[in-house]
């Protein structure tokens, strides 16, 4: 087996919530010896997965489930509380975010941000935007070389050279999306993190951008981590899908297995809620609020309370991720039981 491009093990991000003001804390320390419990928010909690070279992994889940926190850790914009991130076999999780900017790996992991309209600097032309990572990360100084690389990236994404001198406000939504993608692929990344790349685009443009992304992956042999709400889009572009719920992996497996035979009740609810889906057993409506990510009870399933099938065991023991099919795993007691019975 080839070594994975990215290997994430037991990754956690826990935020300490500051609840007491400084004077209160000071007085407390002065007058009492009681342990001071500070609530902790478990944004990402023990997540493990890997991405093979050239593979495309979809990451879905509702807002607040830790998708973005996970992404900011992977691209080293935020620190890691626990766990390791290995990129091409090298441990990059321990490098502080401020130093990672100077790491040679920084150019190999690039991000395409959500909103093409807002993620471009309005005062930079398309050329400046695409040239920025070449200057900063690859430390290119030769103007001719930079121009050649920018031209090459623009050509790959189908951006006419005549548009390179334009400012963002002079470009259409689809063209801005292309500039964003060109900026990300210019330094020759191995891993492209795509954070909802098409959610701000019209359907008429979305199809073109999706096809472009699919072609680029094959041409350049990049791996994708594709973060999206739109399950129909994930299905088109991804080899495997990872579903997150409240900081934990609920289910991970090959795209077809996830869509055809979802094992986790949350995945089933998610699939049935997608507009256009016609679920066989009717739409699963999730009632109730998600559990709080602040100091979660380690012995209760994160989905308990909203889960239509939750029962006694789910409240006593949190389910671990376990295999339910070929390279398909789900964190649910019921999924495992179904497997054993079959």
């Amino acid at each position, binding site marked *: 087996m080839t070594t994975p491009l990215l290997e994430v093990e037991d990754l956690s991000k826990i935020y300490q919530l500051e609840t007491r003001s400084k004077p209160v804390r000071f007085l407390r320390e002065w007058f009492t010896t009681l342990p001071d419990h500070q609530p902790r928010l478990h944004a990402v909690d023990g997540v493990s997965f890997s991405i093979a070279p050239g593979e495309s992994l979809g990451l879905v889940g509702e807002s607040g489930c830790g998708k973005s926190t996970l992404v900011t850790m992977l691209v080293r914009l935020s620190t890691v509380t626990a766990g390791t991130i290995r990129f091409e076999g090298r441990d990059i999780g321990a490098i502080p975010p401020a130093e990672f900017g100077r790491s040679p790996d920084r150019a190999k992991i690039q991000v395409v941000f959500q909103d093409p309209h807002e993620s471009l600097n309005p005062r930079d032309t398309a050329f400046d935007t695409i040239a920025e990572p070449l200057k900063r990360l690859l430390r290119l100084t030769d103007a001719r070389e930079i121009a050649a690389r920018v031209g090459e990236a623009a050509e790959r994404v189908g951006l006419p050279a005549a548009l390179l001198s334009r400012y963002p406000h002079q470009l259409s*939504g689809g063209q801005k999306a292309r500039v964003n993608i060109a900026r990300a692929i210019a330094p020759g990344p191995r891993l492209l993190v795509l954070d909802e790349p098409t959610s701000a685009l019209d359907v008429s443009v979305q199809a073109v951008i999706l096809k472009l992304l699919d072609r680029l992956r094959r041409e350049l042999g990049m791996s994708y981590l594709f973060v999206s709400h*739109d399950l129909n889009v994930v299905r088109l*572009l991804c080899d495997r899908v990872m579903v997150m719920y409240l900081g934990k992996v609920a289910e991970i497996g090959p795209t077809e297995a996830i869509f055809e035979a979802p094992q986790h009740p949350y995945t089933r609810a998610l699939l049935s809620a997608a*507009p256009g889906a016609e679920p066989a057993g009717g739409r699963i409506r999730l009632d109730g609020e998600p559990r709080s990510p602040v100091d979660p009870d380690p012995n209760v399933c994160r989905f308990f309370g909203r889960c239509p099938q939750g029962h006694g065991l789910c409240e006593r023991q949190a389910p671990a991720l376990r295999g339910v099919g070929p390279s398909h795993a789900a964190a649910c007691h019921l999924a495992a039981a179904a497997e054993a019975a079959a």
Partner: protein
Amino acid sequence: MAAPLLDVDGLSLEFRTRSGVVKALEDVSFQVAKGEILGLVGESGSGKSVSAYAAMGILDAAGCVTAGAIRYDGMAVTGAPEREVAKLRGREMAMIFQSPRTALNPIRTVGDQIGDVLRRHGGATRQTARARAVEALAQVRIPDPARRARAYPFELSGGMCQRVCIAMALACRPKLLICDEPTTGLDVTTQAAIMALIVELCRERGMGALLITHDLHLAAETCDRIAVMHAGHVVETGAAADLFAQPRHPYTASLIAATPAAGRTLDAIGAIPGNLPDLRAALPPCRYRARCPRALGVCDADPLPPLGSGHGVRCHNPLGCNPMGEEATVDHAAA
């Protein structure tokens, strides 16, 4: 048939800007009946939101209606004095805006904000406003409404904020609800819950709703009827099921073809060539002309056929009819 709740009749609208006159809407007609949900779909820039803003009488000062009329329950909204229209807003018709976080005031609690609406339009007093705000929050199924009423918008999730906006819009029991992309940026599970709530309220209270969206799946699922807009024209209208099963305007067909769906591969998705035309320039009678694969000679010269009732289409050469001779096509479309 009873008079429609909202009747937009041949509306043309322009924005006078420094860079020229933008002909944002031209001869736009659609109706919303009581208890009915009408979907307005189309690309951004096709005039969906402008139509809604015109109906609410909250157009930008640069906008000016050049022809046609908007009637709410028989009363003309266009040309009516601002005082009269202001009376309708909130009480008779209410609007849910696209981004809930920017629609709410960040420095006041959501309960206070709903209370304001109730005191202004719903006849609540300072004493009763609080309790009625909590009631309004409970109605949109916000758990623990009494506590949430004291929360500031930043303390709530996006889905919660949108529910607060819906609660605010519904607080005075309007007869018409205009939703401008109510679920963009929300999770699919939250989206399903919010759309189910809107549909339920329409059925229960006989409220009419205008749903603006660019999500065709969502429109197909929620709406009774759909109006497809392109560059300021309504190009096709019909019952949701008919329109999606048998689109007649080439633009509708390509919109449907461009939408990713279950069982559709990447190759099967077609993009729509070209962009929306510049609405400041002189335009041909059919604004889809330059992007249309089925354009005929007649498209450049003749004005568009009228929309007609039922499953109507404004096209000289619609799909599903014989694209043979031009005369035959025109006859068919006019019939």
